[in-house]
């Protein structure tokens, strides 16, 4: 087997007395889709936050594409190729849809302060190119969203906000995309459209690895190659969705207890 893209080795995150993540180890291959499920408070979002550099691991190692991520600031990790979306979408609401994606291109553009002031033409050209690229990216994610590119991001409907967040994350040219509950706040029809969108993204970028935190089991059944179950900060199971759902302790921890989501 080839070298995994992401490797978490015994990662532990502690908040005062609380063990948010306890000795979690897993790896992810290039192009693979990994689903992460577990009850609320199981440490799923904490895992994303520690991978993206928002939190620091108290113990354990995270390696990505041959590099150590421990202690790297969040903006450097984006540059290395990890992008994410948030559970409650965090768009730049007072800016245009297009600008949101252009900001996603921040690490892929170079203009410095002095360039911007003294070599304005070059800076402007770079930004115009970025806007063109952002527009094309928007169009591939969703034609409807592209039509709305000059609207304020805050005016978008919920489903479009998610799409925009995904487009913005893709703009950073990631090798790994982390989606934190992309279907939250969506109805069944919208969730199905979301599954199609994510599939489309993955078809166009077969090398992109994706990690998805989800509560919606129809999505978990449809998308991931592999599913990991977290409970009280620990990994309690890992495998295909079919193999996981039949495990008794998983059902007890999650599926059985949370009938509303299952």
């Amino acid at each position, binding site marked *: 087997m080839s070298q995994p893209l992401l490797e978490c080795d015994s990662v532990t995150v502690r908040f005062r007395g609380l063990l948010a993540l306890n000795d979690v180890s897993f790896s992810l291959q290039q192009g693979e889709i990994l689903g992460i499920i577990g009850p609320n408070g199981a440490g799923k979002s904490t895992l994303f936050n520690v991978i993206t550099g928002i939190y620091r691991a108290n113990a354990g190692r995270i390696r990505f594409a041959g590099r150590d991520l421990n202690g790297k600031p969040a903006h450097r990790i984006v540059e290395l190729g990890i992008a994410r979306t948030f559970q409650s979408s965090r768009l730049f*609401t*007072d*800016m245009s849809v297009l600008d949101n994606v*252009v*900001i996603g291109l921040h690490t892929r553009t170079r203009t410095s302060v002095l360039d911007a002031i003294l070599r304005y033409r070059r800076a402007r050209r*770079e930004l115009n190119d970025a806007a063109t690229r952002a527009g094309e990216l928007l169009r591939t994610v969703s034609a409807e969203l592209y039509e709305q590119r000059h609207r304020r991001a805050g005016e978008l409907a919920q489903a479009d906000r998610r799409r925009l967040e995904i487009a*913005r994350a893709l703009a950073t040219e990631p090798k790994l995309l982390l989606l934190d509950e992309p279907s939250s706040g969506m109805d069944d029809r919208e969730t199905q459209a979301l599954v199609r969108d994510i599939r489309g993204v993955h078809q166009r970028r077969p090398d992109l690895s994706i990690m998805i935190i989800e509560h919606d089991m129809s999505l978990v059944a449809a998308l991931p190659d592999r599913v990991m179950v977290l409970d009280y900060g620990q990994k309690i199971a890992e495998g295909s969705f079919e193999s996981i759902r039949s495990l008794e302790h998983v059902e007890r921890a999650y599926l059985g207890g949370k009938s509303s989501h299952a």
Partner: protein
Amino acid sequence: MATRVTADAAPAPRWFAPGLLVIGIEALAAAVLFLFLTSDNWMVTTGLLLAAGLGFLALQRNPAIETRIVEWFASARTTAILFGGLLAVVFPFFIGSNTYVLHLLIVSALYAVLALALNFQLGSANIPNFATGASYGIGAYTSALLAVNFGIGFWGGLVAAAIVATFFGFVLGIPSMRTRDSYLALVTIAFGVVVHQIINNVTWTGGPNGVFGIPAPSLFGHSFSQPIEILGYSLPSQANFYYVAIAVVGLSIVVAYRLHNSRIGLAWNALRADELAARCQGISVTWYKVLAFAVDAFMAAFAGTIYAFYVGYISPDNFTFLVSVTIMTMVIVGGMDNILGVILGAFLLTVLPEKFRIFSDYRLLLYGTIVIAMLMVRPEGLFPKRLRRYGGHG
């Protein structure tokens, strides 16, 4: 109502139409400013204020009109810039020997530079910096002390002051990196107070007596203490400083515009909207915050140097906390993250208290009422921020 107006906007105007409209609007604005500044009749000034207030109220009610005016200016940008520049250059010729009005214009221009400086922080990046007055003071004192003690002239002082103030901007930026919102505001207030106290208590700054005897600058052998004689016209010596101040306003506009329309401006805007999301797009929040402090200090130092050489005397009282609050009010009332709005805010809030001197004791009451009224009529500022455009397509 909005839909009706956009509906008849359909026929494309001929190529010269927006240009003429822009010239008309700018000429009208200049005429209003001239009348407002030179009139001694309180009924005229109050009437103009009321008319302007009604104008803004109309804009607030009909966003389509506002959009259309903005489009005129966007399509006739070169005309707008050239004619605006021309108006700024010929304005002193209309004012003639009225040095008081010229003084008001110089102070307004300096405040416009300060407000543009603060706009990088407050407007673009939502950093509540209450220390712009301190950077202004650091700039003024640096160049004044260099001039009085070492004989360094205005132009050298301008550069030296900018370097020193930018250094202090970085110094202030570093403790500010780890704080935000109200805490950040407190750090900057403390910095402003510390700077004021140091200037007031150290002997080599002249203490509370300040620095005096700052020599007049000169350019190509023309001393700024001499009147300008040109084409048979004679402009009072203040006109020298008027032109320098206007030139620095122009420079500040160019810098502000270029930074706003670059990835730097976008990164600042991202910080303003959501700091965590900005970090997750690869933006180094720390660097961009410190950068905003440095740019603010750099431009404030320019204003400080001009002020010191213009008045010839500076004291700690010129650079109090209140100055920082005034600059902040200008940015908020004028329109955060809108270059023209910020400049308008600076002019308005400099000139208003002066014109209200006729109301003597009620002056500040009226001033405060007008600021509140403006924020009620235009909550996002007189000229609110706009969405960016790329490559001409709206």
